[in-house]
């Protein structure tokens, strides 16, 4: 059963995901021009980046402490498009995918779209924050049973998962290094908080928060 909130999340995600891809294709020219001019690599260039990382998840209030036990591992990937730049400031949009495994509890995907702001306080690192919204789809990490009113008994069922709307907020710090051969990567650490809503309508639990700590690499395309 998917309610209006979940559909809003799914629609929001796919509409904005599409917009980023259309922007990214037009930006290829910008990337080429940038390469031709052979400017020093800087992540604030108006261009497209791909990122991937490994994460640790925790169900907790926003900015809950890490390291958390047990470690619930995840992988993260996505693209960022830097659409605006002025001096040390820049703005970007991002499309991200996450896969998290809370062992013996659940496995879930998140696909979200973010809008962010980045600043370079010093030459060798940047700070980045973003707000996002997206779609979470969660599967139980154990058998699921459903009541069969025909037989009056519970039967194990295939778990197709449940969808949720998932707004997010992230803080990121990155350290780029020059290496055109490797695509001028940056190592980043990102702290994100997600909301999952509506969590359990039948039990009147409207929302639960979760936090994610990611260590990743960002590569200029």
């Amino acid at each position: 059963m998917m309610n209006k909130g979940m559909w809003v999340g799914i629609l929001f995600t796919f509409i904005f995901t599409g917009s980023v891809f259309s922007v990214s294709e037009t930006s290829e020219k910008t990337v080429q021009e940038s390469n031709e001019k052979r400017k020093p690599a800087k992540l604030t260039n108006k261009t497209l980046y791909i990122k991937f990382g490994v994460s640790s998840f925790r169900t907790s209030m926003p900015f809950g402490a890490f390291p958390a036990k047990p470690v619930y591992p995840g992988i993260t990937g996505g693209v960022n498009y830097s659409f605006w730049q002025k001096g040390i400031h820049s703005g970007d949009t991002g499309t991200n995918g996450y896969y998290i495994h809370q062992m013996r509890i659940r496995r879930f995907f998140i696909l979200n779209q973010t809008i962010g702001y980045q600043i370079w306080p010093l030459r060798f690192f940047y700070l980045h924050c973003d707000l996002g919204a997206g779609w979470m789809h969660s599967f139980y990490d154990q058998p699921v049973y459903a009541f069969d009113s025909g037989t009056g008994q519970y039967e194990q069922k295939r778990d197709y998962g449940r969808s949720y709307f998932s707004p997010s907020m992230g803080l990121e710090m990155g350290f780029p290094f020059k290496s055109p051969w490797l695509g001028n990567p940056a190592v980043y650490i990102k702290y994100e908080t997600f909301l999952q809503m509506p969590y359990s309508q039948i039990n009147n639990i409207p929302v639960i928060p979760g936090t994610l700590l990611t260590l990743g690499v960002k590569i200029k395309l």
Partner: protein
Amino acid sequence: MKQKAILFKFLILSLILLKSTCMVESEMMDCSQYNYAHNHGHSINHPQSAVLDQFIKEKVRLGLVGVSMMVASPQGTWYGAAGKVSLECGKDFQPSHYSRIGSITKTYTAVMILRLSELGIVNLDDSITKYLPGRITDEIAHASVITIRQLLNHTSGIYSYTDILSFGLDLLNNPYQLNSEEDLLKYISGKPGYFLPGESMHYSNTNFLLLGLIVENAYGKNLKNAFVDLLKTPLSLNHTFLDPDHMIPEGTSQGYLNMDSNGDITNATDYLMGQYADGGIVANVFDMYTFMNSLVNGAILLPITLTEMKTWVDVEQPEFGLTKYGLGLRYWSTPYGGAYGHTGGSWGYLAEMFYFPDHDTYFILLVNGSLGKFNEIVDFEIHKKIPELLFSSLVP
């Protein structure tokens, strides 16, 4: 198009990971653990036996996984079970099967404290600081003026750790985590309290967590052994277990949780919540009847102590007729007269244990499901309807 290809690969990798983590652990469950039966010494001779059999079967048809129930009155005794003790094993629930009784444990803990009071080991009107170390009481607001009696009837004002948001989130994060009593008390450390001690009543699991620690400190044994000495052995409760370190003994029914509105349920047997003096007991209906019967008939406490137990304070927000609270006892107000006992709930289990003095009737219920529709069926289809079912034909 390059980035699209990379995202596609990421998606494929995620699906592979998803598949690889899809292990079904329950296939390893030992189903022979449910092949037990014991001589409980009861026989079915209640005139409403057929009606009661039908009553519990209806509740399973409404959506309970399994239910075990017992009624004992001057007219006769009935016990029965319906549904499954374990969906993984497909085994039927039997009346002798064990289940978690949740907060009904509070009545047992209260009786242990009252036994210690009768033995002169504790005084109900002493400050809790007399029995608990400073490292615990220093973190509790107004501890020096809170008495054991105020813990027993929830008038201490001490915050319930289960009301703390971070506790709930930690539980969702890792429901398999075994927390010590001191770990749980950290959640309420420095909290101001609901009200000044004695000013009002607020149900708090922390009160009974502290009472468990008082039993240990005053009696000089851990809770498991104190329980054996004070209740299990004297009453021959051979099918009642309280072991905070190994809460679920073999043979306990599997408990299920309904978190989703579509009615899907999952196994929550190993979700560790309330494993101590506030909710840690596992028992079957026969042993619960033995305990309650012993309490009512003065076999475990002096009649004057039971009278003290039934000194009621008003519940702040009564629900389902549970209007008052005594010393570890709930008072249930029904159109057919009052009852005393307790209700219980933990993740995966619901339970009730009541005695109707006007009818000299005991009602014991164990259900291996909680939250969502399980709570609705127990609250509205059993708790609300059972007094009428039992007593309407007796009213002139």
